[in-house]
Structures are given as C-alpha cells and as structure tokens.
C-alpha cells in the first residue's frame, strides 16, 4: 500500500483524507487513532501520529479532549477543493506526456475520455 516517493506520514495523512473525500469517514465522526492506523498500515506509531498532526494543523481533524480525533465540519468540501486545484498537474501532465509518446492528438484523447465516462455511467 505504501509507495516510496514521499514521506510515510504524508501518505498516511492522504489515506485519511481519501476516506473523508469518498465519504467513508463522515464529518463529525471519530477518526482512527494513531495506534489503529499504525497497526492497520503496519507502520511506526510515531509516523502515524505525525500524519494525524498534519491533518490537525490543516484543520481537517480536531481534537476533543479525552475522546479523540474527529473530522472537522467542512473538511470534505475543503479537501475536494484542494484536490481539484492539484488535478491538472497530478493527473493531466502524465496523461499528456504518455499520449504524446503514443502519438495521440488532443481530439483522440478527448474522444477516449468521453468513451470512458459514458461506459462508467452505463455501468
């Protein structure tokens, strides 16, 4: 599950964000604890704690004293905004590069994307 391109705690933070974005971790619900994350991903608890701390700094999670970490209200919306902003460089750049390598032009690429989208909708 872990990839090596970036620090583990960043990846852990992203995993938690993923589940907030896809709705499996609802706003105002309790986030997994450091030790739960460590055991689940088989990583050092300090690393998991660092990931959680990052999300707290970002305002995605907040601490309720004596209970644990909870997803902040509005966190999902904020994360989706953030990801949309990064979408082009994260996904479109490599897509464009590979398309160029294969000699696909823009129109063909758009056509392919359209097909993908409609297939998805059908399914």
């Amino acid at each position: 599950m872990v990839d090596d391109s970036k620090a583990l705690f960043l990846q852990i933070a992203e995993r938690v964000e993923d589940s907030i974005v896809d709705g499996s971790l609802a706003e105002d619900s309790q986030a997994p604890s450091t030790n739960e994350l460590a055991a689940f991903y088989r990583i050092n608890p300090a690393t998991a704690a660092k990931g959680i701390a990052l999300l707290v700094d970002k305002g995605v999670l907040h601490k309720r004293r004596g209970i644990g970490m909870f997803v902040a209200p509005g966190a999902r919306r904020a994360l989706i905004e953030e990801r949309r902003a990064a979408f082009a460089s994260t996904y479109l750049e490599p897509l464009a590069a590979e398309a160029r390598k294969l000699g696909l032009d823009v129109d063909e690429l758009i056509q392919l994307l359209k097909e993908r989208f409609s297939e998805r909708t059908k399914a």
Partner: protein
Amino acid sequence: MTSIIEVKHLTKRYRTATALDDVSLALDEGKIYGLLGRNGAGKTTLMSILTAQNFATSGRVRVFGEDPYENAGVLGRLCFVRENQKYPERATPPQAFRTASYFYPNWNQRLAERLVEEFQLPTDRPIQRLSRGQLSAVGIVIALAARADVTFFDEPYLGLDAVARQVFYDRLIEDYAESPRTIVLSSHLIDEVANLLEHVIVLDRGRVVIDAAADDIRGSAFNIVGDATAVAAFAVGKQVLRKQTLGNVTSVVLKGQVSESDKVRLARSGVEVAPVSLQQFIVSSAAQPDKGDAWGTDGPPAKVEARQLVRNGGAR
C-alpha cells in the same frame, strides 16, 4: 528528546579486521531504530558493546548517561538476545520465559503466551532441539515480553517464514504503541522493516554511512530512466548515487527531490521518474565501494560521475 545512548568515536579492532571504525551516534528515548547494513557491517559488534558484552578498542559509550560495563542499574534496563543466543542446557521455552520474567519487572506474560501460540512454539522440548526459526521465535518472545527500556533485536527473523515474521512485526508495533520504549532492530531485510522504523542507521564496513530520520530518507532520492542523453543532461550537477545502462537507456538514482516542474520537464523528454525505496536508496548509496567516502553527502566522486555521464551521452 533526550539521548539515552551516546557513542563517540567508537572503534573496535580485531587482530585482522576492523569491525567498527570511528562510530559516533546518539539515540533518543522511545524511538524504533533500524540498524541496517550487510552481514559483517558491524551491527552485532555495536550492539554487543552497547550492552557491555564486548569491549571497545577506543572511543566511548554511554547508556542512560553511564558506562554500561558492570553497571547493574544500566544493564538491568537492557535486553539483547543474540541471533545465535545460547540458553541453559535442557531449558524449555517456558522455562526460559519464566527465568527472563524474573529479570524484567515489566515482563508481559500475556504477550509471551500469545506469541508462543502464534509462533506455534513447542513448550516441552529443550531449546537446543528447536529449529532455527523456533530458536528465533524464542528470542523474539523474550525480547518483546521483557519490555526493557532499550531492546536490541539482532536479525530476529532468521529461519522464520513470512507469516511468523508478520506476527513479529505486528506484535512489535502493537506492544510498542501500548508501551513506548527504545527499540534497536538490526536487519538486512530492509524493505520488510522500513515502515516500522522512525530512524535509520546504516553501517557499512564498520562506518556509519546513514544516520537520519526515516521520513527524511524516504523521498531523498529518485530514480530516472530514459534515453541516455536526456538522462545525462538532467543529471548534470546532481549527485548520482547509482547508474545503470541498458543499450541506449540509462537509469540513474539521484540524490535530492524532484520538483513538479522537473517532473513536467522530464515527462516531456520521455524520461520516467520513479520513487526510490529505502532499500534501493541504501543499496545505491553503498554501490560505490572504492571511492573513499562512498556515501558522503558532499560527493565529489558522484559529480565526476555525472560529468562522465554527460560526456558518454554526448559521444553517442
């Protein structure tokens, strides 16, 4: 953070070989350390000296601020089960565990019993007649259940199958989360333990070549693969940790981080960027055996290599 282990200019020479060569380190309380390196790199010697089971030729070692030698107050807080640990004649695993429990006030019997079950350790046979893997399991049970302030693991997985190794890693994380303490895990299976580590120390022929937080290492190098000319052009002025060539394709591991603009630039010239795992990083860093300070951070030899690469690339 307080350093609980301090090593200064530690050198250990045997008649024919130097096991440790001017090693200086400081270990903090409550972290999981990876002590990595090839067989014979000096890992066991270092742990032996830290636990006063072996002696320095020169240099200084302090554990909890004191010399550990014959120091009951210090040694009583350490646990170091060797990879080829010996046990009293005819002792069975449960007897060895019971004895160990006398020595460690925080002994976790519940964990010991659980591990015995998970490792499927025979309880009625003398330890001497156990298999290699079972012998390793006995050592793991003692070292984990002891809950010593500093626990040293010496290649603890020898002979264990993948399932048993995972049991070890899982229980290690679990019990560490429950009762944080300093753990030094010596290993040459770097990929397997990489995610457990907070800090990484790499020894190579008795010298410390990497001493850094695991997070800092992850993403501290990257691998680019592609047309030799393009790769060479990008590598100019960067520290090359490793270079491999296959026909007209060159793969180099470069130190540093790849920026978003670099990624775009590389993608346009058809060069692929791949992450470098901790294991790859260590192997790459170690792969320049005869260039003096092979893993140095200021790497003149690496720069020379990058220039050569350009020249070679240009000649084609």
